[in-house]
């Protein structure tokens, strides 16, 4: 009999196709084809990402239309508390809605892809209702550690933060006392303590969580896997290799401003740049204004092409020679880098965190000093003027980590958790 694997995610890619959601759903679809597993996908829905509320009176659950193994959970009226990651108004989401769901489906493994908008208490509820079921939790960014959207970037100057502490966090949020931050940490850790195994897609993330207090032996380093074939983008490109692309969210942490300033530094030498970015309209006015000023300066060399559906990423990457990842936050394991490598495009990225970890400088891409437009301009100039560099870096690109390899690693981890004696659960 197949084992029932429940994945819990903070969004359904149909509602909002963010990186983690897309990945989690791909993983779910992959397990559909494996006899050993019977996957179930539970995603939070409702405002603000979706205008739709719960469709049926008396329940906060509904199946995703057209599927029999995907559900949506609508917690919108519980008032999610961003600081503590819990429901402020009532715990009934856990003790009633989630409990009913868990008891009805009785999963053998529960894998939380995210608890944002759902709350860390979902872990407590799972442990309480299914005391012996392994709980797995994938760490996607630093949200449990950092209240600044999990970026570990200081609020006052967007400088990088290496370590959270009550006083430092209080500096970033002067309206919240350091004592509240300690309370936050203790609360979140108490809930995460119920997790049997964490998945960290990058060593950067793993080390940060170990330093924060999660026992190293409870974290598995395992990168995201990808399902899509890379063939569309795996085409050679004629000389000159002078088209650059930037992909993903256009928020202040993604460094689009650094890239556009580097274009200004390069002036006449600046290459063509294709900006495939989403959600600029959701950003603060000052940021939008800054970006529009920089775009104006860059003139015709920059094409702003808007957002794209994830399945078209390879096709769009085939149109560029170089992919730039100029984030000023640490990043975890950026899906853009995986996409670029799947499309066999060298990556120019900031020299920190998950980016520096996944891209080897001089092997399959180049690093520049984070946040430094001069350093980025120099790197771009090198890319444009060094003969044979593009081809050489392309050769250094590793084979993509396929979803089947990735799912194999996870399945093995699930099996070993299931094989443990009952007392050993966290």
């Amino acid at each position: 009999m197949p084992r029932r694997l429940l994945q819990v995610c903070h969004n359904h890619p149909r509602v909002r196709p963010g990186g983690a959601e897309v990945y989690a759903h791909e993983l779910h679809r992959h397990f559909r084809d494996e006899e050993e597993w019977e996957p179930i996908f539970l995603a939070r829905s409702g405002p603000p990402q979706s205008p739709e509320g719960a469709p049926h009176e008396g329940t906060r659950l509904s199946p995703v239309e057209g599927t029999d193994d995907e559900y949506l959970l609508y917690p919108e009226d519980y008032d999610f508390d961003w600081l503590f990651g819990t429901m402020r108004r009532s715990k009934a989401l856990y003790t009633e809605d989630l409990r009913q769901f868990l008891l009805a489906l009785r999963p053998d493994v529960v894998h939380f892809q995210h608890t944002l908008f759902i709350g860390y208490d979902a872990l407590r509820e799972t442990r309480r209702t299914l005391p012996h079921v392994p709980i797995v939790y994938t760490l996607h960014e630093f949200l449990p550690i950092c209240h600044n959207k999990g970026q570990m970037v200081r609020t006052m100057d967007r400088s990088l933060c290496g370590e959270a502490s009550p006083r430092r966090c209080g500096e970033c949020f002067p309206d919240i006392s350091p004592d509240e931050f300690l309370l936050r940490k203790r609360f979140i850790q108490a809930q995460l303590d119920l997790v049997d195994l964490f998945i960290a897609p990058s060593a950067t993330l793993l080390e940060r969580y170990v330093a924060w207090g999660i026992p190293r032996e409870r974290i598995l380093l395992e990168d995201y896997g990808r399902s899509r074939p890379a063939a569309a983008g795996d085409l050679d490109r004629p000389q000159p290799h002078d088209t650059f692309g930037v992909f993903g969210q256009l928020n202040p942490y993604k460094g689009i401003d650094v890239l556009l300033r580097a274009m200004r530094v390069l002036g006449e030498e600046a290459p063509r740049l294709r900006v495939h970015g989403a959600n600029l309209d959701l950003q603060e006015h000052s940021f939008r204004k800054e970006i529009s000023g920089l775009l104006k300066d860059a003139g015709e060399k920059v094409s702003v092409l808007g957002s794209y559906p994830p399945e078209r990423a390879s096709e769009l990457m085939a149109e560029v020679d170089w992919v730039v990842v100029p984030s000023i936050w640490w990043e975890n394991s950026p899906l853009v880098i995986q996409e670029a490598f799947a499309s066999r495009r060298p990556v120019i990225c900031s020299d920190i965190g998950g980016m520096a970890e996944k891209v080897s400088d001089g092997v399959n891409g180049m690093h520049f000093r984070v946040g430094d437009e001069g350093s980025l301009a120099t790197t771009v100039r090198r890319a444009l003027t060094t003969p044979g560099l593009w081809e050489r870096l392309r050769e250094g690109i590793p084979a993509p980590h396929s979803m089947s390899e990735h799912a194999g690693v996870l399945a093995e981890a699930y099996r070993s958790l299931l094989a443990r004696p009952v007392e050993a659960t966290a």
Partner: protein
Amino acid sequence: MSIGGTSKPAEDLGAVAQGSSLRRAAWLSDELLLLDCAPAVGGNSRLGNGSRLKRTRRPPQVEARAFAAPGGRIFVAAGGSLEHSSRLDFVDPESGEKLATAAGEITATLTDLRTFLREGPAGWDAATRSTLSSFLATLVNEYGPSRSLGDGLRQAREVLRERRPVTIEDRRVERGVAVERLHRIDARAFYVRGRAWDTAAPIAGLAATSPEGERVELLESVFRHPDLDGRFIGLFETVASSDLAEDWVVEAASGPGRAVEVSASLAPDALGTILADASLDFEGADSLREQQIRPAIARLDELLRARLEIVELGSYGRAPSSPAISLVVPLQRRVDLIEHQLAQFAADPELEQCELLYVLDDPEQSDLLERVAGELFRLYGSPFRIAVLSETAGRAIACNLGASLAGAERLVFLDADVLPDRSGWLGALGAALDADRGAGAVAPKLLYADDAIDQAGLTYAKPEKDGEWRVQHRLRGLHRDVPAAADAGRVPALGAACLMIDAAVFAELGGFQTEYGVAEYEGSDLSHRLADIRRHPRYVAEAELYRLEGLGAAPEAVGERYAQWLHDRLWGRVIERVWG
């Protein structure tokens, strides 16, 4: 109220033929009839003001009181159907001697209260009017407060009292009086802070008149000091209980024709005012605190404790039948902190042997607490109980009453903003208490959020020679791992934010002293009282907990200054001898 019974039949007593003539009558309230009679011929020497009389003649008997003045006699009679009487004899219930007779048709003389007073007592001299007004006010003691009596008394007072020029609170005028705060302590005790000034002459008279009309001289009872810029502060008492909150009158006089008055209303939060006054620092502040502040606070505290109740709201889950330890957690402002403690306790195996009792010190949050408690129990599954005080009373009282509900022989008092750093703290505290037979109470190392020490027990300091001893947190501000903090053992005292003590010892000591209002001083006071039973306080370095005062779980301590003074007054000499 019934008058004490006389052994003789009423008819035997009515021997005097000549009655005083009834001039007029009026209802003072729904129950009380005022009768104004001409002065007795030859006078009744035994009829004094406030004499308690009994009206006889025919049943039903009614009770009466009398007020005699040169201009006439006022009888106050209680009971129904009085207006139908034509002759009333008033007899001393003790001796049976007939003292007065009111003759005449009451109905025919019945008038309204204002007319009654204006045509009679209003013509008397000011002192007698004031005495009559005070006499009438005491009727509240006998007949209890009622709306109609209050209205009647206030009307009477306005006719009878001597009016002074009303002042405005402006120090540029030559003389004046102002009331900054007026509070009720209980039905007959009041606390006032005001200011009286006259640039030309010293204040020679100060009086308050209750809305019911009782006049109380303040000059002797309140505190005044040259450094206080004309302020008067303190307690005063009325003979009659006063129920009305509006229309107090305070007057100040600095000589004939130099009197002024101001009206005042009772304000809420007596304790707040008193504690603010306790923080005044000037040459004579100790006397103020000794003579006025402490008696006022002690009285408030006593009254509060007398009327307080603790009610168990609910019991969630099944606690161990004979718990090793009862954790008593006073909840003051932040009910939500239960969730955070439960999140920590859930992973601590030692808690399984304990009973957890939350005591809400704010009845307004009872409904919220019940809802939160039910939801948290469903989510966490750890057993606990909740109880609520009938009114907000402060952490010491919450702890004392919580202890009365506790089932274990050992208690831990734990503030809601205290979170254990790790499991094992209860065991460490218990082991230390067991290991040191002389230890009466133990407390852990308390930490700030940044891992600095908040306190490793308490100690004392006297910053100024001849000043007061102050409680200080031992090793405050140093890193938690500083070697000095690792030395467990006897310390001068323990704070109360997290403290373990055997229930029998706690009961023997009588619990926390409830007049401080500041946890450190409550803990220190308890620590000193351990010496009375040949025990001492002990600090336990291995038990480490965070104390997060920044969460705002406890109300802002306004009484720090008073607590320091009271503590020094009670324990300063002991501290000087032992630790000085």
